[in-house]
């Protein structure tokens, strides 16, 4: 085996002593990078003007003297190219946004008038032909079109979108609860019926409510996992406020579910406009839709629905006021009990909501007899309980919530595994769009899973951080330090984030493979901004080795198997195996270097199976990292271009990158135009696909005149230290900035 690019070199070699500052978590060569004017600048100062640091400087600046991942993220965001959609959002960035939202919040009665005024604008029935460039914005309730040339806004409720949006409308019902398929009790899994919570008016400990708990969720019931912050180390909800907020908001959601079902039709599915993913027609939040699917459809007919509508409308005005204020004024929930006592259909409906709340559903200390066993069994199944139904987050301060280790674990589990989460707010200002905690949490959860994933990769794959240090660098709090090993293990079990968030300032490192047309001559793309070409593929099937690698299977915490050394190298070449099969190159496109190493290691361990499956001899492997959150350790931290002669390329990435990532499309399009045959391994689906002509015995003539530049590129050339930002990738790859 021949390895190349083991040590990044640079065409602007660093001056000064080269040492390896361990706290940078970068290759040794970065010890010589001079920060110059960036040396003493704070992130705020670093944002002066629109200054952007060279990637190598950015990497050192963001890490020198810094420990926490949040702080690294803040520094990265401060000195990377600005993106119109906003930059990397860590907790620190979000804190700034929250402070801004607080400053701009109006007094509540004025905000109410402003929201009322918002309803009084003129509304069109259809979108006419309008001159000029038409832009649009979508909210949870509306889509608004406008042009630069006119102040007039064409605003449509998503319930009645314009006809132009009717062609891509597809059914979009939420799934039935997984819990319905589990007929037998599972040790350690208990749920608290909603009416028990209302009757008690408080969140009580498991030992006090055990007689009221249920162990099986039957069809017609809805399990909700309540994720919340403990407000006291002994009792999570000392004054019962969380119980009141949960109860009132779930009743309001049930009433909305009744209205939506009545307006849309009990068995009519929710619909969405697929291209934008927004609702099309009558619909509610995912929580409301879950209630329709799980509570209404199995047990209601039209007559009962009409009775439920009548009951819901009798409390519409009450529930239309501030739910937080209602809850705050209803200590012990006597008022809510009175509301439900007089509305039997609503009471029966909400009574089939089953809550999982840790304090009620896991035995609490001191634990006697078999309670400890029960507790351990329940703890092991936390993720499973989340998967059984929906996760509802009772949210106050977003930053505080995500700093609690248990809460973060629950939010990430819901985000990655159980179809998202719903938010119940415990802040009165939750109706204020500028301060809506749901928006803040959603924005944070766009990037936070990436930050956590890098922390885990640093520990499990790159070995630069001990697992306790990784949690400390994530700035996570936990009431009982003994919980940390379990929490870490569960975080480790969550696979890589699949949601794609890309920005102009993504850091691209690794090796860009380029098709070799003749020795030392390659085809490089010259139109990196061109739209993605269609990718006609034929599914071949699934393969165990094609699934996204997780960290869970790498051995016990603290004793995981290190990756093989070759995985750390972004380009590896092998001699042909001599079996006479067509040669192939494997190109990995990953979210960061740690993930690239993980995938490379996993694939190389299954290389023989991959070769058999595709009918090829793999003669080289490259990896490329497209990192939206370069906060973790980097092992290569440079970007090179290398000629690849194999007539077949196997692109290894995720399905979302295949469809939407311009880096992936650039590689695929370049290869296809150069006459190469393509195969795909889509890690999130475990799916394998090939394009027409795969495997090819030799390179086709291709269409090298279309969007490609022929350039001289001998193998083993220098890599650009620090990599390049995404916005500069096309220029770098085409060689236009050489010299």
């Amino acid at each position, binding site marked *: 085996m021949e390895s190349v690019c083991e040590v990044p070199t640079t065409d602007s070699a660093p001056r000064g002593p080269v040492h390896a500052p361990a706290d940078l978590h970068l290759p040794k060569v970065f010890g010589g990078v001079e920060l110059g004017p960036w040396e003493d600048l704070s992130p705020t100062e670093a944002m002066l003007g629109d200054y952007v640091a060279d990637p190598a400087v950015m990497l050192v600046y963001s890490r020198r003297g810094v420990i926490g991942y949040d702080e690294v993220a803040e520094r990265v965001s401060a000195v990377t190219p600005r993106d119109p959609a906003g930059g990397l959002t860590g907790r620190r960035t979000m804190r700034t946004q929250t402070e801004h939202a607080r400053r701009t919040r109006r007094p509540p009665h004025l905000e109410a008038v402003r929201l009322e005024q918002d*309803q009084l604008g003129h509304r069109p*029935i259809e979108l006419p032909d309008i001159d000029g460039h038409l832009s649009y914005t979508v909210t949870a309730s509306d889509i608004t079109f406008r042009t630069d040339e006119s102040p007039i806004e064409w605003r449509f409720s998503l319930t009645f979108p314009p006809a132009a949006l009717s062609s891509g409308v597809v059914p979009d019902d939420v799934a039935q609860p997984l819990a319905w398929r589990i007929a037998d009790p599972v040790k350690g899994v208990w749920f608290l019926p909603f009416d028990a919570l209302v009757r008690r008016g408080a969140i009580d400990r498991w030992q006090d409510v055990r007689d009221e708990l249920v162990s099986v969720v039957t069809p017609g019931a809805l399990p909700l996992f309540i994720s919340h912050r403990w407000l006291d180390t002994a009792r999570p909800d000392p004054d019962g406020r969380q119980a009141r907020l949960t109860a009132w908001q779930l009743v309001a959601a049930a009433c909305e579910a009744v209205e939506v079902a009545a307006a849309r039709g009990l068995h009519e599915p929710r619909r969405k406009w697929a291209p934008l993913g927004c609702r099309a027609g009558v619909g509610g939040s995912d929580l409301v839709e879950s209630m329709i699917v799980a509570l209404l459809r199995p047990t209601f007919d039209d007559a009962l629905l009409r009775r439920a509508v009548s009951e819901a409308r009798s409390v519409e005005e009450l529930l239309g006021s501030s739910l937080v204020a209602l809850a705050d004024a209803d200590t012990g929930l006597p008022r809510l009990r009175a509301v439900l006592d007089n509305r039997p259909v609503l009471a029966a409906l909400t009574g089939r909501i089953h809550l999982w709340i840790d304090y009620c559903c896991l035995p609490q200390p001191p634990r006697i007899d078999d309670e400890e066993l029960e507790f351990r069994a329940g703890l092991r199944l936390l993720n499973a309980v989340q998967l059984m139904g929906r996760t509802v987050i009772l949210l106050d301060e977003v930053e505080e919530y995500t700093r609690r280790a248990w809460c973060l674990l629950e939010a990430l589990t819901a985000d990655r595994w159980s179809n998202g989460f719903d938010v119940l707010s415990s802040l009165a200002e939750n109706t204020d769009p500028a301060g809506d905690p749901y928006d803040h949490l959603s924005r944070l959860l766009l990037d936070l899973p990436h930050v956590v994933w890098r922390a885990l990769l640093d520990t499990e794959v790159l070995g630069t951080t001990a697992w306790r240090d990784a949690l400390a660098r994530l700035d996570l709090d936990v009431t009982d330090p003994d919980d940390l090993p379990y929490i870490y293990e569960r975080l480790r079990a969550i696979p890589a984030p699949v949601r794609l968030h890309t920005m102009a300032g993504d850091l691209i490192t690794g090796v860009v493979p380029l098709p070799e047309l003749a020795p030392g001559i390659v085809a490089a793309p010259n139109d990196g901004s061109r739209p993605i070409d269609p990718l006609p593929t034929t599914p071949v099937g699934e393969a165990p080795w094609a699934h996204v690698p997780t960290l869970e299977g790498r051995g016990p915490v603290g004793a995981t198997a290190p990756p093989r050394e070759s995985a750390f190298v972004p380009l590896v070449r092998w001699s042909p195996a001599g079996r006479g099969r067509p040669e192939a190159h494997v190109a990995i496109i990953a979210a960061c270097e740690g993930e690239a190493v993980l995938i490379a290691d996993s694939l190389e361990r299954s290389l023989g199976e991959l070769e058999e499956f595709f009918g090829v001899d793999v003669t080289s492997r490259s990896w490329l990292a497209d990192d939206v959150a370069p906060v973790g350790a980097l092992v290569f931290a440079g970007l090179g271009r290398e000629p690849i002669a194999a007539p077949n390329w196997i692109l290894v990435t995720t399905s979302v990158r295949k469809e939407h990532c311009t880096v992936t499309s650039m590689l695929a399009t370049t290869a296809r135009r150069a006459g190469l045959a393509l195969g795909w391994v889509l890690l999130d689906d475990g799916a394998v696909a090939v394009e027409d002509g795969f495997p090819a015995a030799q390179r086709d003539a291709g269409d090298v005149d279309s969007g490609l530049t022929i350039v001289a590129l001998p193998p083993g050339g220098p890599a650009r230290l620090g990599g390049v930002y995404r916005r500069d990738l096309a220029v770098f790859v085409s060689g236009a900035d050489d010299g």
Partner: protein
Amino acid sequence: MAETDLADVVPRMWGAFQAGDIGTVEAYVDRYLEALGAATDRFTIVPEPLRSDSSAIEAWVEFAVTVGRLLAGRGDQRLLSRIMSSDDNPIARWQDTVSEAQLLRQDGRFEAAAELLAAIIPELRAARGSAVDTLLGKALGQAGANAFDVGDTDEALRLTDEALRECERTGDAEGVSIYSQNLATIAAAAGDDGLSAVRARLARAQQLHDGGRLDEARDLIIAVLGEVDDRYRAKAHGLLGMIQYRLGDRAAAREHTRRALDAGRCVGDQAAIAIYTANLQVIDQAP
């Protein structure tokens, strides 16, 4: 020198200035004399991260003046005259103040923005000219919005009403549209328009429509139609026309949409005219 290099130099100069090291600032000026003299924008525009801190803004201005004087002492007057001309030219100063106030407002610093505007509005009122025509309405409208956001509805009403009249006088159609809506919002908040209940019911009707509860929405508007005045007549008939269209009553839809269009024309509401004209076409062309 390349612009990107200057991007490194200015923060270094700023750092030295903050540390009281004028000698270093002077050394940079000597070294990058031509580039700094040509890049006046780098000094006359306060960097965004500093704008939230009034003492930092003050320091930055001092820094810019210092660099301007150092450059002037070496024969390059461009930066200093740019800074000073802003002070000496009232129109440039008013424009800068309105822009600065807008930035403060966007950052939620309503009171600081109000203070800036309060200092120039009397001067604008006393001045004449096309530049003043453009600026006075904006300054008044912005000041009214600031007053609303800090809860002073009386002041908000007074300023926004003046902004509206100023825009009507100068023929600023966009200003008329925006400040009319603002005035309605503020009046409702102040409880001065006598139409709070009408507004609330119209808003509720829109919500019912958006929730697919068309019959209820229709009944609510029909009940309120007799109480609306010119400000809300177009909205009420327009929404009723749309609801009737969705309910399949084309004749009623056409009738109410026509009335909405007429009401919009009566008050010069350009959005109402454009949208209800389009709606009428949809209704007429419906199969």
